[in-house]
């Protein structure tokens, strides 16, 4: 399948910043095979390649949306470098890192940013885990409100509360609990 429109790097970056679906599709298609090749030739599976690639694209998006971030290399190089780093981390976690990596592209070492990136990933993981620890019905309430952006009225009728005041009350209790769980971990890290 071929995408008719060709994008320049600038228009792609602009597309990312505007959350254009076409741009995402273009980027996804353009560099997937590169990462698939990299991961599968460094003892990974197709599924792992897909996971890593999607994480890499998310990092690209997150970085580009930061106000003070400027991409100093090609999108391709950035994606390759991020995915490479993520995959090395994954290999280390699985104790499969043999010390030698088959590389196919130029990459950025990310020496200065490694710490900040690690911290971001850890925070994301902590949040996901905290939400799991939080349990029901809190998880659903908070997800519906903060993640799915549902209104308090919708949540009230979905969860079967008698009125919105009750639902709100429950939401705050849940927030407090999440806070406790999250910051217990967070402060250990600091």
């Amino acid at each position, binding site marked *: *399948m071929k995408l008719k429109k060709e994008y320049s790097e600038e228009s792609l970056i602009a597309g990312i910043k505007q959350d254009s679906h076409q741009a995402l599709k273009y980027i996804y*298609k353009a560099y*997937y095979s590169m990462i698939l090749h990299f991961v599968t030739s460094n003892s990974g599976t197709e599924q792992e390649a897909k996971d890593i690639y999607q994480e890499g694209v998310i990092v690209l998006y*997150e970085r580009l949306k930061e106000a003070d971030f400027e991409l100093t290399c090609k999108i391709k190089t950035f994606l390759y470098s991020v995915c490479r780093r993520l995959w090395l981390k994954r290999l280390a976690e699985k104790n499969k890192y043999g010390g030698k990596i088959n590389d196919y592209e130029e990459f950025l070492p990310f020496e200065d940013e490694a710490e900040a990136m690690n911290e971001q990933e850890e925070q994301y993981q902590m*949040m*996901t885990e905290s*939400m799991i620890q939080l349990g029901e019905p809190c998880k659903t309430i908070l997800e519906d409100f*903060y993640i*799915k952006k549902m209104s308090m009225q919708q949540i009230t009728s979905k969860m079967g509360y008698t009125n919105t005041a009750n639902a709100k009350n429950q939401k705050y209790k849940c*927030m407090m609990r999440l806070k406790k769980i999250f910051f217990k971990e967070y402060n250990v890290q600091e």
Partner: protein
Amino acid sequence: MDIVQKYTTIERYLEGQLEGNELIDFEQQIAADSNLAQEVEEHRILIENLEKVRYREEMKAKMSAIHSELFDVEEKSRAIKTKARIKSLWHKYQSIVAVAASVTIIFLGNTFFNLKQVRSVEEKQSTNYLQLNRELKVVKRKQKNIEAKTNKLEIASKKAIIGKVKSTGATALVISPTGFLVTNYHVVKDADSIYIETRKDSSLMRLKVKAVYGDEAKDLAILRVIDTNFTTFGQLPFSLRTEQAKLAERVYTLAYPREDIVYGEGTISAQTGYQGNPASYQISIPVNPGNSGAPVMDARGNLVGLITGKDKKMEGATFAIKARYLASMMDSVATNLEVTDSLRKPLIKPAANYLQYLQRPQQVNKLRKFVFVVKVYNSDKNF
């Protein structure tokens, strides 16, 4: 400040919804109160992270859609290629497949033979039923012989003991979701091994149990599941009725006198049992061997008693031990286990009745999950 109100303000502040005096007020409060400032900061981090989770999930969903749109087409074409390959392989290995097929046919023949065997086992089961009758007659004759000798045995002979014959299935009722059941003492008295069985749709569930407590006088025994695969029976829908059931009250029972569960209806015909036994009721309800241990429920789904036996000389006189005695026995077993066996799950008495507002068929449908066949095996052949 009310805590919910405080959080609302923090949230609104972070969303930039505070304006004018309210905003100035709140900023002053933050500046003055370091605790509040920290709370605001923590809330900000939390919301920021929740937002990040939301963003990532949204992106992943978008990309997964793109992924299947772009690459699943390729997978389809790959599937077509594999089909073509299978065709060429078929030509290549036709002869081998033919040999394999003939082997399969031989195996199939075996299966038919096995099916035949299964059928003959089933037939045996129905003849088992006849045997059971015969064996009961043997018991009766023996007892008649002894009758003349001792007065004590005379009583025993008059009381037909149901389900004493080996391999007769009696009935057991779950009394705790943690794996306890109750049945009659005479059912498990001489048991080498005891199993409980139930049919869920078409599959058979079979669990090994052990008698943990028995009371010969009350004819009650408590069984415990010792199968390692067992987790829980689930919430019990009935409760125990410890006060006396009224004369002429309608009751029903569920039991396994044969391989399938059987429902029976009757009334409380006397508040005392065999020979005036105050611990039992006399119920006019049709029962058969295998009904031992079957629950007797009242119209609202409370457990009134447990069937123990019937009078052979009297028509329609069935006896059931009162639930009150079961309740007190469960209490003593529970406290006993707490001391001797505190590591395993405790016995929890059923408390809530979920059956009372249901129609009878729905009641029975809920209850039947908690009624089991008890299969007792013993090597002792001299009854």
